[in-house]
């Protein structure tokens, strides 16, 4: 039936369907911004409107920052995610290099354990790791948030696969120059692996910035809260009364990653779907 104008009809249908879906995807974001911009009286009215009659975003943001130490929580998020990533690289890169380029007894066993480790969901080890941290008195600290994630078997696997593609000649040339094996990891392999490390970094930072389960378990003190914990606590203490500031707080918490994502979409999508190339 659409033979007369096959291309325009299909193209229009494509956009209509995609825009309808996009509206559904964006609805929570739009509603969040809209609510964060409304004064209390407009939020608690059964008449729906998207654009506030009276613009109150600044008031809501101010109240959110006054009720919760959001800056501190954002800083905690940065401290924790950056520490985790740096330590993951420091642990994983040397191991990945050895697994990819050196021969030693037990190499295949170790690699098999790495592959096995990837299958273990993080919730599975939570109880023993919690008990361990309790035993050594590290609960409720930055260390409790960071230490369990310093080992990323997925990171080792990923970097090992990448190092496999680095030519042996490069490594041999470095050895001729008298660079130690340790030096090769940081001065030869790391520079060659920057794209892979970046992708892994995005994967790691996004995962730990958004993580709720582990901080919930090990933290008690308010000043150590990570962004997701902060939102949850804000919601528990304010729910039902001040949705405007709550939505403003949610906006602040998701803003850093969403803005970074909009600036470097391709890299972010690559990084987060890393698990897709396993």
């Amino acid at each position, binding site marked *: 039936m659409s033979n007369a104008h096959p291309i325009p009809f299909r193209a229009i249908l494509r956009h209509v369907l*995609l825009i309808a879906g996009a509206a559904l995807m964006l609805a929570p974001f739009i509603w969040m911004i809209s609510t964060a911009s409304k004064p209390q009286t407009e939020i608690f009215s059964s008449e729906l409107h998207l654009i506030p009659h009276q613009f109150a975003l600044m008031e809501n943001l101010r109240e959110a920052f006054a009720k919760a130490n959001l800056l501190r929580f954002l800083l905690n998020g940065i401290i924790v995610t950056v520490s985790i990533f740096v330590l993951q690289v420091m642990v994983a890169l040397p191991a990945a290099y050895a697994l990819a380029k*050196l021969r030693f007894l037990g*190499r295949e066993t170790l690699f098999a354990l790495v592959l096995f480790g990837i299958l273990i969901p993080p919730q*599975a080890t939570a109880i023993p790791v919690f008990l361990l941290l309790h035993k050594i008195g590290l609960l409720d600290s930055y260390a409790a948030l960071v230490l369990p994630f310093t080992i990323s078997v997925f990171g080792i696997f990923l970097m090992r696969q990448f190092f496999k593609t680095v030519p042996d000649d490069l490594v041999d040339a470095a050895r001729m120059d008298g660079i130690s094996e340790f030096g090769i990891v940081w001065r030869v392999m790391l520079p060659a692996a920057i794209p892979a490390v970046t992708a892994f970094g995005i994967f790691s930072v996004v995962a730990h910035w958004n993580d709720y389960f582990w901080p919930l378990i090990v933290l008690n003190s308010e000043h150590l809260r990570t962004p997701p914990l902060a939102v949850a606590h804000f919601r528990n203490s304010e729910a039902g009364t001040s949705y405007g500031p*709550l939505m403003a707080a949610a906006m602040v918490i998701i803003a850093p990653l969403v803005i970074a994502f909009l600036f470097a979409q391709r890299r972010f999508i690559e990084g987060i779907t890393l698990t897709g190339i396993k």
Partner: protein
Amino acid sequence: MSDGSMTIGAAVAPTGTTRRTLPAHGSRRTHAAYALVTPAAALMLVMLLGPLAGVIALSFTDYQLGAPQFAWIGLANYQDLFADKVFWTALRNTLAYVVIVVPGAVIAGLAIALLIQSGTSLRSLYRTIYFLPVMATLIAMAVVWEFMLHPQFGLVNGMLRGAGLPAFAWLQDRSTALYALCAIGIWQAVGFNMVLFLAGLVSIPKQLYEAAEIDGASSGWARFRLVTWPMLGPVTTFVVVISGIRSFQVFDTVHVLTKGGPSKSTEVLIHSMYTEGFEFFRSGYAAAITVVFLVFVLLLTLIKSRLADRGVHYT
């Protein structure tokens, strides 16, 4: 000269034979190798493999955090668990969540990927929009969803009323709460699946479509059925399994929005494990729940590798 040809067989061979082929400084390099892997191996043991063994061992004890001693009690935790109605409710809810979210997020992800790929304009804009929920902190967005689902002032009920339809107390009603959480789960997972399908679609060779067309497959549906669907096989398997594993882990939305309620209608495995292990500190009992959870997750992984072995492969 020293690498590349190493196989699993070579690793099992006695070291004497390999060492002979290495240059004189080979043993120093071996020492370096051990030094390089030691931190990773040690941490893996302490933070991953040890705790994994630990959780299984704990599930056979009556250990409680802070208790002065504990005893081996064999299968008693599992007996208690299987006799507990709440456990079965949690398992049933988790399975229901998985059975709703996986097809929902996989089919929607595939449909969006096909739609995006079927034209050339605005591709990256659409991709960005659909991927946005994957990026946004789920806890923050869950709180937004909660307000959207507010019985009185929420967007969803407002629109339903506007259309003359009945409104619901979504998260406060035991007959709708789990479905509301499923909707949030699908909303959050669709973009991730879409990106994996897009990557799969791009890798299908153009010639296959041309060949199918010559063979008379002219309609879009025929091309999908004859080329796209079979060629996406491995990607689809992967997406289904990874969606399944992620859905089994559902916790964030439950904990912040419903705490498993109303009347256990949204109680799920990891939430039970959390309350038993970290609120009541019944470590042994919580470990038994974890083991049940692990069995399901590993089962899914096993199915995936079975399917992967059956001739579906990447190009």
